[in-house]
């Protein structure tokens, strides 16, 4: 089982990387075409700061849906903390900052599924924009299940940290180790393997477009107006 899961992990990573490189290749190919832009402004430090805030604080979402903004910001922030917390399984020795966020990581582990539930409810209850793509539903469902199994592991199915770490570091260093003896961990791990190849490209593409949007908005006033 351990060998099979290790193989599945590598396979999932290869699928993700192949998808990713194929997309990047198509973007680079298209770079040959001229950008459709009447005006091209230099990015000032002020504009760069605005771009960063747009991305980090999801400010464009704040403009359109405040409740969804709160849920999304909570989701992204708690996901980040949870991922950082999980670094303790990948790194040896564990850096101090990872150790310092362990408690916050547990709290984020609860906030994460709650925020996902709120997002799901907003999406399905909203009267006019009742739109949830199959892909998004699949992603949200996998994430929710991953959170649930993670919480169960933390609360009721405590598994040896040493065993988990040995297994994970074995995969990372291409020296596979024994699978920890915990059905909950196996379920949690399988869900993550399912998540890896399905990771959406908007993780990378959306921030790039948010930067473009800020530039475009700044340039709008210059299309027909003097500087």
């Amino acid at each position, binding site marked *: 089982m351990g060998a099979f899961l290790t193989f599945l992990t590598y396979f999932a990573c290869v699928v993700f990387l192949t998808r990713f490189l194929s997309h990047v290749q198509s973007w680079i190919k298209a770079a040959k075409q001229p950008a459709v832009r009447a005006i091209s402004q230099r990015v000032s430090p002020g504009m760069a700061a605005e771009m960063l805030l747009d991305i980090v604080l999801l400010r464009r*979402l704040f403009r359109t849906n405040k409740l969804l903004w709160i849920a999304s910001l909570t989701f992204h922030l708690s996901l980040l903390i949870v991922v950082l917390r999980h670094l303790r399984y990948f790194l040896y020795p564990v850096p101090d900052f990872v150790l310092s966020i362990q408690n916050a990581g547990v709290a984020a582990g609860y906030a994460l599924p709650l925020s996902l539930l709120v997002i799901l409810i907003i999406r399905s209850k909203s009267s006019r924009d009742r739109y949830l793509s199959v892909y998004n539903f699949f992603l949200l469902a996998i994430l929710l299940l991953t959170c649930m199994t993670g919480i169960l592991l933390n609360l009721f199915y405590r598994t040896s940290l040493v065993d988990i770490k040995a297994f994970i570091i074995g995969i990372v260093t291409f020296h596979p180790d024994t699978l920890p003896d915990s059905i909950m961990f196996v379920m949690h791990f399988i869900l993550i393997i399912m998540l890896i190849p399905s990771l959406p490209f908007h993780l990378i593409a959306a921030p790039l477009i948010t930067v473009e949007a800020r530039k475009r908005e700044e340039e*709008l006033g210059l299309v027909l107006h003097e500087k």
Partner: protein
Amino acid sequence: MKNKKPFGRELTRTQLVELDACTQCGECLKYCPVQEVTGNPDISPPEKIRMFRELIKQTNGIKPKLFGPGKISQKLLEDLTKAAYECTVCGACGQSCPVGLFNQRLWPMLRKEMVKHGLGPIGPQADMQKIIKETGGPYNKPAEERYSPWFPEEIKVMESAETAYYAGCTGAYCAMPMVKGDVLVLAASGEPFTMLPPEEEVCCGFPLFITGQHDMLEDLTVRLVNAYEERGVKQLICSCPCCVNIMARDWPLFYGKELPFKIRHITQFVDNALKNGKLKFKKSLKEKIIYHDPCYLSRGVGVIKEPRSILGSIPDVELLEFDRHGVDTRCCGAGGAARKVFHENAIAMGRLTVDEAVEKNADKLVLSCPACYEKVNEAMVGHDRQIKIVDIMELVAELI
């Protein structure tokens, strides 16, 4: 259907990244005017992107590269075609997009892809290229009727001048009070201006651009730019937002270099003329008026303050605002050449604009786009709510 031509070739790098950047959150559906009147998520912006991604995947992804192009379902092509062409290309979805997709630009390029693959244009749009070739404009009307029905005889047009006025096809054939108002106001400002003879003032290219038919765009642009340059033009004034949009944003690309003159919307010129005393309101207007921002003027080229400045300077007037105004404006239904095929949608959207203006107790609904002017007037026919519709320059001409 086996489609050998890969999809995605007509998009720029940014637009390809935009397709990947859509999170399919569905927020845009709340702002889409087509959704407002059809309630059909199958033709919504994220669905269009999902379907288009699917076509790229089938024809331009890893699988087709390794195993040849996959089979594309006829239904997918039909659904995407409907979704692409039922859209009014107003860009409200991009404006409200939490990521910031530039959909006012993405959708026309998606339509260009559809045309390249023989999937568009649809309905009467398909004849447009031929009609423009034959008559110079998209309305199948003779060039000699371009100015004659509305142009005031007393107004003098110079052979050459630094300022030129471009009436545009929709204004000249479908919104005559608007273009008449334009030239009356221009003349009243004392600014000498020139115009091209009717047979030379051909289509600006926007109807072709917006329906994805790009073959003639370079030729039309070069003809117009050269003609104005020969007349010594330094600024080209136009009142049609769509014309102004393509002139400012795309003509330099089709022309291959910077234009030899500036493009200005008529409200910019008039606002300036009012501020420096060349124009003055002689009459007052004791009415509540509401101004509708055309999508391609506000979201498209950022002309938002000038129309308000003009209207606000009319003595005694009370200027009202739509709930969604400025860059957030709601399409009146006339956009994207969709009105030529999906007439009922366009009328329903036009009526939403009329309804809100009536609910806000406006005495007049002020427009500044010939397509809006034509369609909102049409939407009033048989509608239980009525309001006086006027073009901004038609109104200014009455009061100066």
